[in-house]
């Protein structure tokens, strides 16, 4: 599924926003959810994840804050913003359009053009 991996990677930001849409979360939880939902097919590296978090935060789609952990290192939580929700909707719509278009373009029928 090498091609699919690349395709999915291009939508990392949108995937993260989708996960944060319902509730705030932290790095590992987001990563785990993506891994589980994709049945182990798609696993993000920590570095990729943090890069995406930073991008999203820079564009104002999410905000971050440190959690109050009882033990161990502090966790960094992320919460989606209004702008982020809007971005998610836009990106989803874009993906739906792209999906339709690609389906049309790669359609072929046996026996044509013989």
């Amino acid at each position, binding site marked *: 599924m090498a091609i699919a991996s690349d395709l999915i990677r291009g939508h990392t930001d949108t995937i993260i926003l989708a996960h944060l849409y319902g509730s705030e979360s932290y790095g*590992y939880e987001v990563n785990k959810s993506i891994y589980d939902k994709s049945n182990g097919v798609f696993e993000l590296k920590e570095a990729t994840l*943090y890069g995406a978090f930073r991008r999203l935060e820079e564009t104002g789609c999410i905000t971050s804050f440190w959690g109050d952990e009882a033990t161990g290192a502090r966790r960094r939580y992320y919460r989606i913003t209004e702008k982020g929700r809007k971005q998610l909707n836009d990106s989803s719509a874009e993906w739906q359009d792209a999906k339709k278009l690609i389906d049309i373009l790669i359609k072929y029928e046996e026996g044509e053009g013989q």
Partner: protein
Amino acid sequence: MNDRIKEYVEKLFLGTPHTRQAADVKEELLANLQAKYEDMLNSGKSEDEAYTSVISGIGDIRSLLGETPVYNTEAVSSKRHTSSVLRAVAIMVLIFSIVPLIVLDALFSGTWLTFIIPISFLSVLAVGVGLLVLSFSLGPKKYVKGDDTFVEEYKEKVSGNDRNARLWSAISSTLWITVIALYLLIGLTTNIWHPTWLIFIVGALVQNMLRFLLKDPKGYKKLVNSTIWLTAAIFYLWFSFATLAWHWSWIIFIIAALVQQVIKLIDIWREEE
């Protein structure tokens, strides 16, 4: 906190810039790795398996930290050399620009070729100034800040390569050289040294305005302000000399302040839209 993981991360961060951003990333990474490790243990993996899995999932964390790229030292030193040579040549040219002025004045003043004098003087001056500004832009970066913290900004300034500082020196020198040149030019050709010295006051005004301009990345607002004040100053001087009514022409400055406020109000109103 698993010590092996912590040790690994510490090693990973060796040699990276000590910025607050890097410290935050390190802390976040440790927390997430720890959570993953515990999760794996809970799902039945052995300690070794969990460790390996956690470590292999880190990816290229160092590129996130904005490491300063290693510069080719040879290229850097040759660039520096060029820029100092260029600067020296520029200053020589500027000093020598007086020569054509004096020589040509002796030869041509009083003849119809008088126009050659200011033209040649200004051309040599322009070449000199151009070279000077060019030499500043060739200055190599000695230190690039790794982060947007004020610590990094300070380090960058102290190492003398802050682009704004260099740009500012280039602009300042250009400004004052131009002022001196114009003063000499006007004085030598017309012998009207008296009110011409005012050009230095105008120069100071211009410099202050430029200072505001450069401190603020949103240059446009400041540009508008400086234009208002420069225009006010020029009008004031011209008007006063023309009418010799120094005692009330200063009202021009009050008008300028008013215009500035009006523009500020318009800006705020526009921002709110």
